[in-house]
């Protein structure tokens, strides 16, 4: 993956607008967060292979960026986005990686389903 190039990511987001697309959205602290730090509230969320159609997609801010997708009657957004790539299946993979390369947030957009 590469450090976000905001202009390029904006172009890519726009290319997925107004189409049925599959979404992967995830935030995580890792499963061991409250094992290593007792009392830590380990919160996160995960959705995968949910089909949506967004009318407007934007990437905003200095790194780490926010990315928002406006739906006809709702929203999807992710914050903490630092890296991106377009993989061999033309899927846009956005990720928030810390200095060690650990993933904290992921937002993937694809015209074809993700594996299970």
């Amino acid at each position, binding site marked *: 993956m590469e450090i976000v190039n905001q202009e390029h990511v904006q172009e890519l987001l726009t290319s997925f607008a107004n189409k049925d697309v599959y979404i992967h959205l995830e935030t995580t602290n890792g499963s061991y967060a409250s094992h290593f730090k007792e009392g830590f509230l380990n919160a996160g969320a995960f959705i995968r292979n949910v089909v949506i159609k967004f009318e407007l997609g934007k990437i905003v801010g200095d790194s780490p960026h926010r990315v928002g997708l406006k739906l006809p009657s709702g929203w999807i957004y992710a914050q903490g986005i630092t*890296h991106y790539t377009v993989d061999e299946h033309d899927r846009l993979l956005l990720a928030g990686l810390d200095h060690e*390369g650990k993933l*904290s947030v992921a937002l993937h957009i694809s015209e074809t389903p*993700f594996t299970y």
Partner: protein
Amino acid sequence: MIKKERHVLIVLPHPDDEAFGISGTIAAYRKMGVPVTYACLTLGEMGRNLGNPQFATRETLPQIRKAELEKACEAMGLDDLRLMGFRDKTLEFEDDEKMVKLVEDLIQESNPSLVISFYPGYSVHPDHEATARAVVRAIRRMDETNRPKLYAVAFANNTEEDLGTPDIIHDIQDTIEQKLAALRAHESQTVWMMKELDEKLAAKDPERMKWVRYERFFSYKWDKDFE
């Protein structure tokens, strides 16, 4: 002293779960000629470490971890690996009965004298716990005289307080190289740890040497069943 078994069945949710505290034992069984079946339920799709610089994306990680697991199995001499096709972090949301059936089928097929898995209530990760519950339930349903032994790995912070000290301790000195090779094979998960471990082992740090050499299990306490 590691006792010879008829067949050993290992049931764990993630590639690398075997490496830390079981791989020396697995290698020792294989060395003795004991057949070992390892059912690994997921491919660790949710691993957080993608590296800096990145060696994977969220989408390529499963295949990388699958290859690492196969390499680890080779290091341990394990030739019966079953990939069960579940997704990381979802096991507790599957139908509980389906999970029990999966373990029952594995037991029926391999007829193990020993099953190794996690200890329910003391294994921290939700997938470890879901796996442990399914294993205990499947064995509990068997006729007491036919039950395999169950060695369970426990590492929650309150383990010693509640369960005491492990009753099964395997000295794996004879297969320590295989264990280190298995740990190294899971590079995406262990690269930082191995750097530290290699340094400590080179310096003959007594704590770390003990940690690698002795694999610790609890015989499941059926008289204090988790449910």
